[in-house]
């Protein structure tokens, strides 16, 4: 654990902002009185797990090569003197999950939902063009600069499960991490059917599905499929039609149709991220 006042490179730790299962996030400053940053450090207890360290390093490597207005910016990375790797990221303490729960679980307005979805589609589309699939889009991984969806700039974060396909794979991935063929990777509520079945085969359309779930959630104020057990949730994602009627009459027809297509059970039936972007841009 880093104490307030500790220095990591040119940054000075101010406080522990969040303690996660794998990483701690500290608020730090570039210099006394300088800009605030987020210092993300892998917990020491995970440093002996090769795949966990590999994912952390790959995330840093991947973010180093991306400059996009809706992807969280990596400012620096390295290892602490006692070993754990760290990343310095721009300071964005509010997540979409905070914004949605702060409104007592209410739905966002269609304009707010479309706005956030457009920004995420823009970010994910840029990643897909580079052969990167995020595979873990969810409200917790969408960071906001202000807690107001009507004006917030959102940034996509947490690339720990991201996968690089094609020729870029060897350039970007610092460490090979097995995605274990049939192991389901991702967050259950947002996982596409093909991700439930074989994560390794999930392509860019899995991100389209996850964005469809996110958009549905913002518009309806709840997830399209709800169950406590993974078996039941897998069944719903694989077989059940999404309850589009929950989107309500205030959701424009063009957005409702787009959500329906994004939540198609088979990947080929879903639009590409560029088509999603175009569809959302047409929303009234």
């Amino acid at each position, binding site marked *: 654990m880093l104490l307030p006042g500790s220095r990591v490179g040119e940054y000075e730790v101010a406080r522990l902002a969040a303690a996660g299962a794998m990483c701690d996030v500290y608020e730090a400053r570039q210099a006394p009185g300088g800009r605030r940053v987020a210092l993300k450090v892998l917990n020491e207890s995970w440093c002996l797990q090769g795949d966990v360290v590999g994912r952390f390093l790959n995330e840093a490597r991947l973010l180093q090569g991306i400059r996009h207005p809706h992807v969280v910016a990596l400012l620096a990375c390295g290892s602490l003197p006692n070993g754990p790797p760290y990343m310095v990221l721009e300071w964005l303490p509010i997540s979409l999950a905070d914004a949605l729960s702060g409104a007592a679980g209410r739905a966002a307005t269609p304009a707010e939902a479309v706005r956030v979805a457009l920004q995420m589609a823009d970010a994910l589309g840029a990643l897909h063009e580079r052969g990167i699939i995020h595979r873990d889009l969810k409200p917790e991984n969408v960071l906001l600069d202000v807690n107001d969806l009507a004006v917030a700039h959102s940034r996509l974060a947490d690339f720990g499960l991201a996968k690089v396909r094609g020729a870029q794979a060897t350039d970007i991935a610092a460490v090979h991490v097995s995605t274990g063929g049939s192991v389901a990777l991702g967050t259950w509520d947002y996982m596409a059917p093909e991700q439930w079945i074989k994560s390794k085969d999930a392509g860019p359309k899995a991100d389209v599905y996850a964005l469809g779930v996110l958009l549905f959630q913002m518009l309806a104020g709840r997830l399209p*499929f*709800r169950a406590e057990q993974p078996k039941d949730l897998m*069944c719903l994602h694989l077989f059940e039609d999404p309850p589009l009627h929950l989107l309500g009459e205030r959701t424009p027809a063009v957005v409702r149709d787009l959500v329906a297509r994004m939540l198609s059970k088979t990947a080929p039936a879903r639009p590409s991220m560029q088509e999603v972007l175009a569809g959302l841009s047409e929303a009234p």
Partner: protein
Amino acid sequence: MNQRVRLGDSVEELIERARSGDSEAMEALFRRCRPRIDELAARRLARRPPSSMRPSDIAQETALRAFNRFSTFKGTTEAEWLSWLMSILETTAALSFRHAGRQKRDDRGAVPVDGPEAAKVPASERSPSQAAALEEAWQSAFAHIFQLPDEQRQAIWLCHLRELRVAEVAERMGKTEAAIAGLVQRGLKALRLRMTDGAVAEPSDARVPAASEDAALALLTYLRRRDAGGDVDPAAFVAEHPACADELRDMLDWITRIQAIRPTRFEA
């Protein structure tokens, strides 16, 4: 936009307002009809032999289903509303009777806890390896069902995993009940081929054995009996259809396997 609900508001007014998104009207509508649902559930259960099922459970489940599916209600009058609720209650009751019957069958191997047989019964708690094997089994089964052609997948999902009545499945899929039985029949055959032989059978795959018309008709009869809440004994049912006994036995066996992995608690 919610308006204030008054005691004098008619059911018709509440339906109209609930349909336009007024959550208070929706709540009032369900509060207003709850005594009627309780009464109908009590009557429905009175026609059955005594069991552990309670009218309040059926009523609660009916109200929940109706609430979740309110958007599919197309009527405008109180009579249409009650008729719709009644049909949901019938489905709910039939499903509950079926589950109770299955539970009863599952209990057949029960032994008294203080008897000598009890010591030989393995612990019901699964070991980690058993749990992992079970998880792998249902994941694999779902993956195989998912890879069936769209309509076969949907028919098996609705008929045997969701356990909706075949009439309801036919209505949802815009087909006849016989067509649904045919889809289930072909789906089960393809599933068997995939899961036992590891083959990837496409709709036109010649390796999927031809489906007999007799077996499809028998399957439809089976589904209707099941939907009526009857306790259908697979062996006795197969014996009633000697012309297609082998195919039917095979289908019922796969239906039992699918039902064993059906989801239990979810909102849809």
